[in-house]
């Protein structure tokens, strides 16, 4: 259908006869060009810089694996990687659970459902820096609305950003409201499940809890896997803005995540070689985590079997 339309379009308007595959390549060109310039070349440059001593001023000099050896020996690097992993373990499951719960609650048409769906999505489109500053205010231990509310309820008001544990938690909490994309993907996934499955399950006497476990979850699992991998990668990067703008890595390195340390190495200490090496190390670690998950649970191909 699309193919026909494209062919017709190109013959009529451009009066150039182009095979379909050539058309595809032609239309992909701008995107590929962008990817080359913005992703591939910088990635290669980073990989090369990682093996050099490069201090922004002057030229890089090749130093072999010295950067990686130095990083391995640094307690701060280990701490930042540990902070990042702790964050991923907390944030990714909670974000998925949040997106799934909201998608289940808002999958059917009812009063104001458009409004609710928009409300779930809106925090995701707030620019990162503004979002971080907003939470800086929300977490203000004395004047912030969160602690005023907790105090009004008679609950203890934590010091949030000044205590290591609550500061880490705060960065997780603020990430839990930017789940709009996962929410939309899961909504689409839910629409994809034929109603007849639920109806026949009902005939067989299944309650809604059983339907969820036996039908919804298995059929959603490919979507959930996709979101898990996507969220792992995204969450790892997304700690940068809040840790840079809200806590600047503190209190006492509690929120010094790998991306922030990379930034500090590069732009505070001008150790661009070290920063590039840590970037690569972080990605290798992330790759290992993703591979580990694939090994344990597989790629979740149950959609085809159904």
């Amino acid at each position, binding site marked *: 259908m699309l193919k026909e339309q494209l062919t017709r379009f190109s013959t009529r308007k451009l009066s150039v006869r182009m095979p379909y595959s050539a058309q595809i390549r032609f239309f992909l060109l701008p995107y590929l060009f962008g990817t080359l310039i913005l992703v591939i070349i910088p990635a290669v440059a980073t990989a090369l810089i990682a093996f050099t001593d490069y201090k*922004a001023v*002057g030229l890089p000099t090749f130093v072999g694996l010295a950067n990686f050896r130095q990083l391995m020996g640094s307690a701060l690097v280990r701490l930042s990687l540990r902070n990042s992993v702790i964050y991923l373990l907390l944030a990714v499951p909670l974000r998925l659970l949040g997106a799934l719960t909201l998608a289940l609650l808002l999958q059917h048409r009812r009063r104001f459902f458009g409004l609710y769906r928009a409300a779930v999505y809106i925090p995701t489109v707030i620019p990162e820096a503004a979002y971080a500053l907003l939470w800086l205010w929300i977490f203000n231990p004395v004047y912030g609305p969160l602690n005023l509310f907790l105090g009004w309820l008679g609950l203890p008001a934590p010091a949030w950003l000044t205590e290591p544990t609550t500061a880490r938690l705060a960065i997780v909490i603020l990430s839990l409201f930017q789940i709009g994309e996962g929410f939309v993907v899961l909504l689409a996934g839910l629409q994809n499940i034929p109603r007849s499955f639920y109806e026949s399950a009902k005939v067989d006497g299944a309650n809604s809890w059983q339907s969820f476990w036996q039908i919804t979850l298995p059929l959603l699992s490919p979507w959930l896997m996709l979101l898990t991998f996507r969220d792992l990668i995204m969450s790892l990067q997304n700690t940068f803005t809040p840790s840079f703008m809200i806590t600047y890595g503190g209190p006492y390195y509690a929120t010094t995540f790998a991306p922030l340390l990379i930034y500090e190495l590069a732009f505070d200490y001008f150790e661009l070689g070290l920063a590039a090496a840590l970037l690569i190390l972080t990605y290798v670690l992330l790759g290992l985590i993703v591979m580990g998950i694939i090994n344990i649970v597989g790629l979740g191909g149950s959609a085809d079997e159904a």
Partner: protein
Amino acid sequence: MFHRFIQGLFLISVLMIIAACQSKQEDNTISFSIFGDPAELAAYEDLVAAFSEAHPEITVQLQHIPGQSDYRQRLAADFSSGEPPDVILLNYRRFATFAEQGGLEPLGSYLANSDLIQESDFFQVAIDSFYMDGSLWCIPQNISSLVVYYNKDMFDAANVPYPTNDWTHEDFLAAARALTRDVDGDGRIDEYGASIDPSIFRLAPIIWQFGGQLVDDLDHPTRLMLDTPQATAAFQWFVDLQVKEHVVPDAVAESAEEGESRFLNGRLAMYFNSRRGVPTYRTITNFDWDVAPLPRGQQAASILHSDGYCMAQSTQNKEAAWTFIEFANSTAGQTIVAQSGRTVPSLIAVASSPAFLNPDLPPANSQIYIDTVPTLGRVPTMHTWVGIEETAGNEIERAFYGQATVQEAIESALTLTESFFDQVNTQN
């Protein structure tokens, strides 16, 4: 954000290529890069305007980046692209990174050949702070020291005598105690006596006041000297202001509202800062304020704050760049910037002129910036100093807010800063 970082790297490489291909225009335009708030920018705009009048043949393009850390980031990108600004305003704690890598032009011979200014016109300590490896790298514009800004109305209301020019640690503490109050009786302190950043740059003068040292050798530093009895006692006194005396905001109060904001809002009596805050403090209308020197311990001491005009090594038009630096640091140039309140002029003649000492504009006690010059110490000049300050600062902050003992903080500050000193010493 990662993408942005990668994009940044790429941008750098593209700029490098462009820079390599482009043959530079041989005209008389120089770029001049500064950091600072809007009040400071206005001062430099006046300076550039006056320069254009005196030297119409040279055009100066002013580049302004408000934040200090953004400024450094921008300069890092500019330098790696091979296109740094021709003239750069840099703090003496930060120029070494650029000089070390061959990014800056040494200015000693330019100054020696100048008809307009010479080294002896400047306060010695300011000039010294821009020497490294035997060369003078930048021309200092100012010699601001750390002082105490105090709210006179709060002192009056609490019947506390104003600080004198030779007040002591005991006087300071007595005043701070009297001025720290829970006004509405809700169990939370509303007005604090003092605020001082928990950083090595604020702690250093107190160490000197106790007779200690910051580093073992100012010219060839190999370690911090926080573990001497004097420095430990100073550190303990500093930390006790918070953990024992509670006269400065604790971690929660500081996180709720920063000390400087409390001072500006009239709810903090004494704020430790350099001359830098003056253009902003001059906008205060709801109370009177003045400055006092740091309270003395066993001896009086304060710490140098100084920014210098530096020239990029790669600049095509060194003569024009020097003409501008020379003008900015002549009596005419320094007078313009001093009038904004931003600087304590590094030229001895301008520092004693009405441009700086203007009695009609606060602070009335400006003379103390000059009087304390003989007691000024400074931090060593080394390219890894930024890392030392940040790392030791984290330890000082931890102790200051009661999350570690002074002993623990000293031990880990010494261990964690070792590598920064080693980097400098293995190179030499």
